[in-house]
């Protein structure tokens, strides 16, 4: 119970953002926009009070008796109407709703596979600082860098001073993946067969070409796609492919192929030229911005096939560009409309690491982006750039549809419905575990380790330490298991005050407010 006698699992979350007052009731999934009076009164009401005081007077005086100051904000006569509105929501199950979802927590234990992340190449033709740093650390023979896009995981494990001593994963070094391995076409085809064989009744299957830089293993990519396309009808399945690329090797032929076959394409670019080129140099130390931007633009311009238009530009921000809203705006100015800018994830020792002390600046940047995306003041600062049609990934939330609660209990499904495949065909819970022998789940040519699969199927918001009482749990789904593992040596440990959780909650606040505005319910923030 909190100090108002409300069980934390049914507590509401309320926040003010740029003049709007928002109320989230986690367990019902409802979202409300309040005026200041209702917003303040919510501090005084409880389920018990709603139950006991039906009418205006008794409840009003019960509130006022406890808070003299409140009486000036909220005269009793007006408060009566306000109280009645809140009580009506409570009675309709839209405020202080009970958490009744735990019974669904273990409904995915026998879930079939639906997606694979294929590490087709561990080699890369860029030397991004947040990735290459790992190579330096790992040249001590402890581990090999995996992915141009996998900014984080192994650095922690490589650094013995940080790695949790009680962790059972110290045997990480044994992995047989080397720095420059590529997956053979045969292994990729075996992976497609493996996915189909473990997919049960599921008809929609996904494969994600990842690296390193997957364009460096182009023959493997095309072999896997051709094999799946040739057989999907007879299997009764439908494949969706995604590719993530740094763009250096894109040419007209590859662009045409990607636009014909990949339902999603993720293009890595960090934002402004100066920011991008510091963090993402080529092997000979030159910047990559000028090489890749025209290629990405060309790809997007010709990405018109129905069902194959999804794409986004995915960048990383670090402590070096804590004014990252400018990078999002620059990407929009370059003509990109689907933008994701992610915080770098690395040990606190890195000079570019994001730490708790950066949180105020990060919140400020998210507020700035919120204003930009509402089409308000900030857009004037960027030469009339219209923010309409810009899809900033972190501020997306579907308030009216969206995934069912069963899906929301465990997020990504890593280790259970989704696996990663290393170049040698070994399977791991996801791309961030690749190379960790304690999490080796078998191989695409052998059987799958069911005990690891079961462990992940039971890793959900109710089995993670801080999630079951967090207001964000049905949106966040308990965060990233790999990140928990890397921070604490335990996939089920979370800390609601960690940088990751604080950023997640701030982004959700912005996303919910933006969605409310788009549904025309929120206060007009532009007028505030």
């Amino acid at each position, binding site marked *: 119970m909190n100090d108002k006698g409300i069980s934390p699992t049914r507590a509401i979350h309320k926040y003010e953002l740029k003049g709007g007052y928002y109320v989230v009731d986690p367990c019902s999934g409802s979202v409300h926009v309040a005026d200041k009076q*209702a917003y303040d009164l919510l501090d005084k009401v409880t389920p018990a009070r709603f139950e006991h005081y039906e009418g205006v007077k008794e409840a009003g005086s019960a509130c006022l008796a406890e808070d003299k100051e409140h009486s000036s904000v909220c005269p009793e006569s007006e408060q009566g109407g306000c109280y009645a509105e809140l009580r009506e929501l409570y009675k309709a199950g839209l405020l202080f709703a009970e958490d009744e979802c735990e019974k669904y927590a273990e409904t995915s234990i026998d879930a079939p596979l639906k997606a694979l992340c294929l590490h087709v190449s561990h080699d890369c033709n860029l030397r991004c600082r947040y990735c290459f740093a790992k190579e330096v650390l790992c040249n001590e023979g402890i581990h090999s860098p995996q992915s141009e896009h996998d900014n984080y995981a192994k650095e922690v494990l490589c650094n013995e001073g940080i790695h949790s001593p009680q962790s059972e994963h110290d045997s990480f070094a044994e992995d047989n993946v080397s720095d420059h391995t590529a997956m053979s076409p045969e292994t990729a085809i075996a992976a497609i067969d493996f996915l189909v064989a473990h997919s049960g009744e599921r008809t929609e299957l996904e494969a994600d070409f990842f690296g390193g830089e997957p364009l460096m293993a182009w023959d493997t990519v095309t072999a896997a796609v051709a094999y799946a396309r040739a057989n999907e009808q007879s299997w009764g399945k439908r494949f969706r492919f995604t590719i993530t690329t740094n763009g250096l090797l894109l040419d007209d032929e590859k662009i045409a192929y990607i636009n014909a076959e990949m339902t999603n394409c993720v293009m890595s670019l960090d934002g402004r030229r100066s920011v991008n080129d510091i963090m993402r140099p080529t092997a000979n130390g030159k910047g990559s911005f000028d090489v890749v931007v025209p290629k990405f633009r060309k790809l997007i311009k010709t990405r018109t096939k129905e069902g194959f238009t999804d794409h986004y530009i995915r960048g990383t921000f670090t402590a070096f560009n804590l004014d990252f809203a400018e990078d999002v705006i620059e990407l929009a100015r370059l003509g990109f409309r689907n933008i994701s800018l992610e915080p770098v994830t690395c040990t606190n020792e890195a000079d570019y690491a994001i730490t708790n002390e950066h949180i105020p600046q990060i919140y400020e940047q998210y507020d700035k982006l919120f204003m930009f995306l509402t089409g308000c003041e900030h857009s004037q600062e960027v030469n009339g750039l219209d923010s309409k049609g810009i899809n900033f990934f972190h501020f997306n939330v579907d308030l009216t549809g969206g995934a069912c609660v069963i899906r929301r209990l465990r997020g990504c499904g890593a280790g259970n419905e989704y696996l990663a495949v290393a170049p040698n065909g070994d399977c791991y819970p996801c791309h961030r575990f690749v190379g960790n022998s304690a999490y080796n789940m078998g191989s695409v040519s052998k059987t799958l380790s069911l005990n690891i699969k079961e462990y992940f199927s039971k890793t959900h918001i109710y089995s993670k330490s801080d999630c079951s009482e967090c207001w964000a749990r049905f949106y966040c789904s308990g965060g990233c298991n790999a990140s928990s593992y890397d921070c604490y040596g335990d996939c089920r440990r979370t800390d609601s005050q960690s940088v990751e959780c604080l950023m997640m909650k701030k982004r*959700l606040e912005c996303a919910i407010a933006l969605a409310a505005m788009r549904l025309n319910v929120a206060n007009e923030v532009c007028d505030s």
Partner: protein
Amino acid sequence: MNNQNQHIKTVTGKSLKETAEKGGCGKCRASCQSACKTSCTVANQPCER
């Protein structure tokens, strides 16, 4: 829903419980939420049923 209200308006009253009753089909896409891919929350995912 309660848009005649003066003090608090409901944006969505969607009941999570109702989604459980018809949910769990597994047709929706996988989504990595880690920053190393993209922090796409599940709440951002469409139901594909």
